[in-house]
């Protein structure tokens, strides 16, 4: 069970969080013409990298904030967690 540092609440057990997918995916802007390929890519295609991965987590049983986590998908080592408006360095 992972031990995740919520940028607002500090270290909490994984039980309090929900995984929120790839944190680098950007939703296309509203009111734009988007090709089928582009939309398909946004909607369905995700990389499954071995190693460092930036992902979103949601502190559902806590402050209810979404935030970014940089994690090693092999070792589960967490390098950094940041608020949504901060960059992972």
């Amino acid at each position, binding site marked *: *069970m992972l*031990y995740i540092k919520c940028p607002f609440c500090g270290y909490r*057990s994984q039980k309090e969080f929900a995984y929120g997918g790839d944190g680098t995916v950007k939703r296309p802007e509203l009111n734009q013409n988007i090709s089928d390929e582009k939309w398909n890519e*946004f*909607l369905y295609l995700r990389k499954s990298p071995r190693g460092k991965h930036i992902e979103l987590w949601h502190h559902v049983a806590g402050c209810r904030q*979404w935030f970014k986590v940089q994690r090693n998908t092999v*070792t589960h080592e967490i390098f950094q967690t940041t608020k949504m*408006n901060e960059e992972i360095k």
Partner: protein
Amino acid sequence: MSQSHRISNEGLLNRNKEISFKFNGKKYTGYEGDTLASALLANGVHLVSRSFKYHRPRGFFGAGVDEPNAKLQILLNGHSEPNVNATEFELVEGIEATSQNCWPSVNFDVGAINNFLNKFFPAGFYYKTFMWPKSFWYKIYEPFIRKTAGFGVASIEKDRERYEHKYEYCDLLVAGSGPAGLSSAYAAAKNGAKVILAEDKPRFGGSLLTDEVTIDNLSGKAWTDKIITELKEMPNVIVKNRSQVFGYYDHNMTVMFERTGDHIKDKPKYTPRQRLWYIRAKEVLLSTGSIERPIIFGNNDTPGILLSAAAKEYIKVYGVLVGKKPLIFTNNDSAYETALEFKKQGIDPIILDTREEHSSELIDSVKNQNIKIRFSYAIIAANGYKKVQSALIGKLNKDKTKFENSETIQCDCICVSGFWTPMVHLASQSGNKLKFDDQIDAFVPYKSKQNETSVGASQGTFTLKDTLDDGFKTGFDLSKKITNNNNSTSPPNVNEIKKNPHDKFWCSPLPKDKNFKRFVDFQNDVAVSDIEIALREGYRSIEHVKRYTTLGMATDQGRTSNLNGLQLVANVEKKIVPQVGHTTFRPPFTPITIGTIVGREVNMEYMPTRKTPMHSWHKKNNAVFVDAGAWKRPRYYKQGNENLFEASKREAKNVREHVGICDVTSLGKIDIKGPDVAEFLNRVYTNSWSKLPIGKAKYGVMLREDGIVMDDGTTTRISENHYHMTTTTAQAANVLSHLEYYLQVVWPELKVNVLSTTEQWAGAALAGPKSRDVLAKLFPDLDVSNEALPFMGYTEGNLFGVKARIFRISFSGELAYEINVESDYGLFMWKKMIEIGKEFNINPYGTEALSTLRIEMGHVAGPELDGRTIPYDVSLEGLVSKKKDFIGKRSLQKEAFNNSDRQKIVGLVPVDRKTNIPEGSHLVLDKNAKLPNPKLGHVSSSCWSFENNNPFSLAIVKNGKNMIGKKLFAVSPLRDSAIEVEVISSHYVDHEGKRVRS
């Protein structure tokens, strides 16, 4: 013959308390402090079980977690538990233990015929024999194998015991309280770290309880007691015995079980039987020690043969002699200590040492005691069936591949020692890459992945001085890292006897013309010959050899067999052990009860129960409840002998004719505030929200990005920047997370805040033609006319001093209102409504009637919004804005969503106007068509239409738009039904929606 093998001058037992128990129906006595194993051995009982495959007689082999044989069925306080390890189970008054895997008894076991047919049961026997015919597998082979193999019998009774879970955080977790654990826990605690010290056994001290050593002029036991007493007094230390760390997971999360109740007769009511600890430790120190490994020889599984350290532990801790004519068989010095303990009891053992004649301090002291030692000797095979009687021994040749002679010597037990195997299970579970240490012929922890350190025997240090020095240093270093304190403790002075290196001898050669079974893995009956067969048949990977032969796969996880197995494979393959590698260590380290894993999450505590403020009234009025997620909702209110169908019909009828009241507290409610709410709602819902005036509600549909309908509900504008959203009961949590995601991640520039208020408001729906009359009486000061409070209107009122929100919204399709008050006033509101509505024939209705009402009206709900439907499918395409963009809009352009024969919601009535159409039925054109019969759609919701007095269903059917008037069959092979149905509009009642606006 009471406790014939008990001695009086040794042991850590309470001899004032005698305990009686039963084994296989016979009564025995032991003392408080005994394990079931030590008590049986004290009574001279060695034969405890029959082996897994050959049903060979088996006896105790170890004295703790190393035990492969003594798994017993235990009956205590009417609770029966299988596969209990007798060497770990503490004796309690009145228990009844029975042997497993034997019939009719352990003394005479019919299954033992397998032993004489063992030529027919080689490795892979089951794979080879039960392959064909395939159809025999389920009905004949599998039940047969299940019956003959296997261990104890699981109880079919409900487990009435209490189990608990506990969460703990600490700086340093120390697993094991032997010299390594005690010293490091002590040094770390003295340096201010928060320490948890866990000991699997009831007694602290590990090897200090059995080894002849002095630490600061104290015996091992006395030093242990001193350290433990001091640790227990420190506020930063938790000291736990009967507690085993059995799993090591990511981010230094470890799990430990504590046996809190099994050793207590008549334990207090709320004392749990076992407790599961989740411990998150900054650092973990593994001082799990080592286990003696056997030397393999012929018939080495005969009862009376056991590990030499176990024999010593039985003497030193339990005051029990495992035999009175012991033969000690060793390749190293430590068995000599066992010999000395026997000698102290006036018994003369014979030692066979595979090494050539040599001397060491220990060997010399044994010689001085006139104990007979035979160097370069090994056991060829043991004789005896249910108990060892004698041993065939022989002198080894120079390279130890052959015996030069042989002779038989009498003995009643054989104590065997093949050196020590560090317990690296937890280290390996943590991700530590092990390496093979040539000096000790075993794997040791090498490269840590997490914050763990092994100290002492668990990493191959076998002298007390080095272990204590390491322990004090490591405990200090780790604690300094965490606390930054600098209070170091110096290690004590130690006196111990120096030992000579061991001999790399682990398996006696088989003399020509002999075919003694030489067992590697006792619990799974894997012999040397089985591994040889596996290799001969081409299995190379150790993981494959393991699975083919089942070596090390039993509940003891091969604690005594793995390394010997690896050595054997390496020898045949002409490799060295590190090239063979080792199999994976997985949690749990020892078997744990399912109850411990489940904890308190049983029955009512399985998940939280959510009750509305009106719950007590519902209960008093014979409500039959239904689970809606965690909520309890009244399904119907039972009157007399009514069944569900009759009650819901009556309740629905009352709504259509008079007025009904329904508890809608469980609907999700989300408070939304901020200047950008309208824009946000525009993006979240498919329809437009720009022009919603204050005091008005609107129905909205929200989609997922893939175009599928996620949820529906109403949102009301309460004031300029304040909105109130409702969601379905089932989707409340998902919708909130969904909104939060878009506000925090996708459009953080929007000034909007969302907050769940589901539990803050109690809600009651007032529905039916008379609902306005009731409302007028509830709020005499308020103008509730159709003009003042029109359909989709909102107002606030004063309900006898309680602030109320009044929404004119309808799910039932009738003239209806939904009234919310703060939760604390929910019951008050409900009672007032019932009281005032009496003259208008008010009656409560449950979810079943509610479903009936909405189905008749063609209102969609969960069964239609099932995660597979787009707005068109459920006839909500009219609410999809063409002008603005919103979540999921781009996906609606998908080709499949725009096919001309796209599925759509329709109504169904049975052609006979009588037969109920089961929900979930498939719709087909021809009920007799050849399989697979093409499916056109499915029945999503069914009810009895009170208005039309016949069954009515909603269905989602291919090309639904053009199906009206057609006849289909609703088939349900599960129920063996095929009902002819007519397709009609999904709006069966009040097509124009006049009533809600009346």
